[in-house]
């Protein structure tokens, strides 16, 4: 069957990165369309009328919204190669739990690190480092969160790595000294083609964050 896959995305989005990685892990041809979030396309508004957010995965004209839902969908449709979720139900539940944890906690905490000042920023920084330490302890001595194999939790977290230099610059942090194992994990992930192709350059992210901070008058 002819597969038409379109991804409506925004290049610095750590959520969009998840879907990009999943598509590339499976070797799926897709059309990447970068959205201007201050001027959303009619297609974006039509395919995600509820949230009007990226990423939106459009498979043969049918939209799937929410990055974690997209990654699971991709794994289920293209189930013949490179499985993303574990096959064992208990391992699968653990993987879902940790991605849910990342979704619930990471975005807000990292936002405070680069997007606030003073006490709010200090609180945000502490929270953020604590979260990374919790994740690092979950990783343990494993190569990947999935154990020997790159999988769902790795995909759920790695996008944030492209923002680490921005957090360090604006949050005055040294993430490697706090979480060396996590940095080692990230570097291992970056050696995968699917990840290297899907994450933007750290410098570009810093430029982007600088612009946003100007917009919110943090400069």
């Amino acid at each position, binding site marked *: 069957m002819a597969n038409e896959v379109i991804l409506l995305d925004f290049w610095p989005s750590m959520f969009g990165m998840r879907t990009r990685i999943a598509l590339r892990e499976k070797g799926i041809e897709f059309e990447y369309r970068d959205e201007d979030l201050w001027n959303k396309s009619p297609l974006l508004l039509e395919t995600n009328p509820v949230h009007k957010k990226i990423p939106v995965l459009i498979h043969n004209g049918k939209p*799937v919204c929410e990055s974690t839902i*997209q990654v*699971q*969908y991709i794994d289920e449709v293209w189930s013949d190669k490179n499985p993303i979720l574990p096959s064992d139900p*208990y391992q*699968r539940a653990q993987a*879902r*739990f940790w991605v*849910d944890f990342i979704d619930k906690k990471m975005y807000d905490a990292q936002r405070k690190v680069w997007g606030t000042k003073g006490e709010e920023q200090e609180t945000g920084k502490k929270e953020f480092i604590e979260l990374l330490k*919790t994740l690092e302890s979950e990783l343990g001595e494993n190569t990947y969160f999935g154990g020997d194999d790159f999988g769902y939790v790795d995909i759920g977290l790695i996008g944030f790595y492209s923002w680490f230099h921005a957090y360090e610059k604006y949050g005055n942090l040294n993430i490697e000294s706090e979480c060396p194992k996590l940095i080692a994990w990230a570097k291992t992930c970056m050696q995968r083609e699917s990840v290297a192709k899907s994450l933007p350059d750290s410098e570009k992210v810093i430029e982007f964050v600088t612009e946003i901070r100007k917009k919110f008058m943090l400069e």
Partner: protein
Amino acid sequence: MAERSEEVKLLGMWASPFSRRVEIALTLKGLPYEFSEQDIANKSPLLLQSNPVHKMIPVLLHNGKPISESLVILEYIDDTWQHNQILPQDPYDKAIARFWARFVDEQIYVTAMKVVGKVGEERDAAVEATRDLLKLMEKELVGKDFLGGESLGFVDIVATLVAFWLMRTEEVVGVKVVPVEMFPEIHRWVKNLLDVDVIKKCIPPEDEHLNYIRARMDSLKLKSV
């Protein structure tokens, strides 16, 4: 079904919609389980040990191994005991079901909590916002007996939060958040739910529940004074 002895235990709370939805799923599958009522104000060592990250109920213990987060638990139950499937089989339909489940928990629930927790203008704004979200759910029910289609499914189980928590709160708060004139489909859906034995069995008894909500609201008011 597995032949070895299965030990299923649920650490839950009788008035929690998140705990009850797990009970609905276990009951739909005909799975015997031990229910352990937890005191949130005084968390048990077992709860803290089983869910060290969030320290929250519900937690499902399957042969001693813990699973936390109600949506994760529901999917685990469906993955492990594959009869009477809760989620659709088709990947696209499954994606849609997952989307609506998150919508209920992340949008409707969060906004509806403000109806209970706020007063005056802030409450009015919360009521408006909740109604806007419910209009989307209303649309989904047109021409369907359940959110899952012809029979009860994943989204219905999750959305019992709306049917038996949000709508019961109306009586206590004194505001018709979900009036029948505005939401005829939702009201029809609630009636359909009440016709399902498993639902009737697994939702908190109404009077006790209303008293509980009343007591919680009073304690919230005292806190904000």
